[in-house]
């Protein structure tokens, strides 16, 4: 008895009018196409990349601050949250930079998945893409995807040396990971939004209302 899978594949093959259906040469062609995959046409992206990246991020309603070093991160976070009068109750994800941050004792910092009641999460980006002002965040044991979507405020720390020019530069890096792609690769460009009400953009549809970036240089 044939199952849906065989029938669909058979239907596809007969539509393609294939003589030798699963010929070795076809299989090799497909494998080659994938393994030798390269970037196609890419838009021009001007230097300097950091400023290009920040400008793009701001153009999609993101805010940012550039700081000279890791030690300035807590104060940058504090500045951002106090300016918006947001309580300093932080959820923090894992990352090389974030793990090395010395959090002031009066800051409430928790490292766990987010719930609907959490208001602020801090994540570390895997990379930034200058072409579109996009942040790349990977899921992990201590990098909870819920941080990227549940709280009203999302703050992302980005090492400026991890800003690449084009999106394809990210794929090259990800392909080199020992376990391949993680469960989730988030490409985040600005805060959550919708234009479903009268074609007018509103922020904070389901994800964060505000996306703040702290670019760590040096």
């Amino acid at each position, binding site marked *: 008895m044939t199952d*849906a899978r065989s*029938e*669909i*594949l058979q*239907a596809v093959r*007969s*539509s*393609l009018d294939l003589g030798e*259906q*699963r010929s070795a040469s*076809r*299989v090799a*062609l*497909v494998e080659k196409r*994938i393994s030798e995959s*390269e*970037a196609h*046409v*890419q*838009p021009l992206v001007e230097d300097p990349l950091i400023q290009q990246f920040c400008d793009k991020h701001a153009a*999609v309603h993101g805010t940012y601050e550039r700081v000279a070093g890791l030690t300035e991160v807590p104060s940058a976070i504090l500045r951002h949250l106090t300016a918006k009068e947001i309580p300093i109750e932080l959820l923090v994800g894992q990352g090389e930079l974030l793990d090395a941050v010395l959090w002031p004792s009066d800051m409430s910092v928790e490292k766990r*998945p987010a719930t*609907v009641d959490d208001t602020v999460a801090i994540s570390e980006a895997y990379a930034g893409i200058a072409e*579109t002002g996009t942040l790349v965040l990977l*899921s*992990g*044991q201590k990098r909870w995807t*819920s941080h*990227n*979507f*549940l709280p009203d405020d999302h703050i992302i720390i980005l090492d400026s040396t991890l800003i690449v020019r*084009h*999106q*394809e530069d990210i*794929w090259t890096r*990800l392909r080199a990971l020992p*376990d*391949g*792609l*993680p*469960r*989730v*690769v*988030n490409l*985040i*460009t600005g*805060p*959550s*939004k*919708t*234009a*479903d*009400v*009268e*074609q007018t953009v*509103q922020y904070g*549809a*389901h*994800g*964060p209302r505000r996306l703040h970036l702290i670019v760590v240089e040096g």
Partner: protein
Amino acid sequence: MTQAATSTAVFKSKAREALSDPALQQAMDRAKGGFVGARRISIENLAEFDSLRDTARDIKDHVLNHLDLYLERYERKTIENGGHVHWAQTAEEACQIVKKICLDADARLVAKGKSMVSEEMGLNRVLEEAGIEVAETDLGEYIIQLAGESPSHIIAPAIHKTREQITELFYKNHKRHGFSEQVTRREAIVNEARSVLRSVFARADVGITGANFLIAESGANVIVTNEGNGDLSSTLPRVQIITAGIEKVIPSLDDLSTFLRILGRSATGQEMSAYTTLYSGPRREGEVEGPTEYHVVLLDNGRSAMLAGRYRSMLRCIRCGACLNHCPVYSAVGGHAYGWVYPGPMGSVLSPLMQGFEQSYDLPNACTLNGRCNDVCPVRIPLSDMLRSHRFEQYRRNLNPWLGRRLLSLWAWFVRRPRLYQGVIALPVWLMNRFGREQGALRRLPGAGGWTGSRDMAAPEKRTFQVQWQAKRDNGR
């Protein structure tokens, strides 16, 4: 919410209704301006846009030529990632597969991200009949779910709703969630929906989304969204289901980047959506967050057949909606007139193929063949040519209204005999000139009520060009 099958009667009467619905007209005007203008600006800023379109078209054509192998490769990788892949030949089969996954998982509540394929399947009704609550979480889908309607646009499902109508819907339906005020400001509307739907994400047992792309290289599933509901539906519930047409597979991540560059711009004028996410299976070892079950349901529903013929390039479609936004007919009558889940030019191509030619008579005919859709399609699908092909198919199957067909045959009989034709038209021309020349036009013309109902018909000259030309020649110019 499933929609009755497309039918001739539906289109004409719904179109008429739509044309005299001021709220709908206002909404369509606003939408048309928004999407069209935004797209134009975004592509003006990208010199490489046309070149990207060619590349995208070529990638899709290549995949379609080897669709079987790319699907097998995608499946193998997804299984390696710990996911399950299910295949469904028909919409009904696909619904049953999803239902079984939900029932086996003891699901009470499903959180749905936007999926046009799930609308094509008619999934919600099947799940609801099985006692499972289905909560649409995309704001536009949520609004139409409350209204008991089907989507009228593939990107902005509630595009036909005005703010007042949304306020009304929320006021009626949110009382049970503890909201008792009428919210009129857009910001407040969005906030209220956000609050109401938050608990859905937290409580849902299953999250169902569509897929914009399936990556054969690594077995990833990609969703391109702005709100975040698709992502919340894919992370918080314990079961993740992705419904996708078999034509969604692309070879590699580099190919994805090409498509992303044209998708956002073509759809909404965005360089990049707020959230473009690649999902690769259930939670990994040591992770405490993410679904423990990951299922991909691949739907055929006529796509393998489309591969065989003149409609193959329709399978390139990346569901951006640009053709809808630029179609003057769609802009005038809105999406519901098309009677099914796919409206506008792409719907007029798909509905006859998926729902049957008999049911969808009007769709390919309610088109001026102006070709603006072809101009804006990011993967260069020759949409208006396909609509004409549908007309050839309809003629072959004798689906045309009897009178129109007879008149056209009669007309063609004369046209093929030009001298006879010229003889025969002399009298009607003379008559039209006789009755119309004083005003310059006729306000009424028997048999042409479709025209003269709303337009004057210019009066011709007394004699046709050929008659005048011959007379001049005979008299020596």
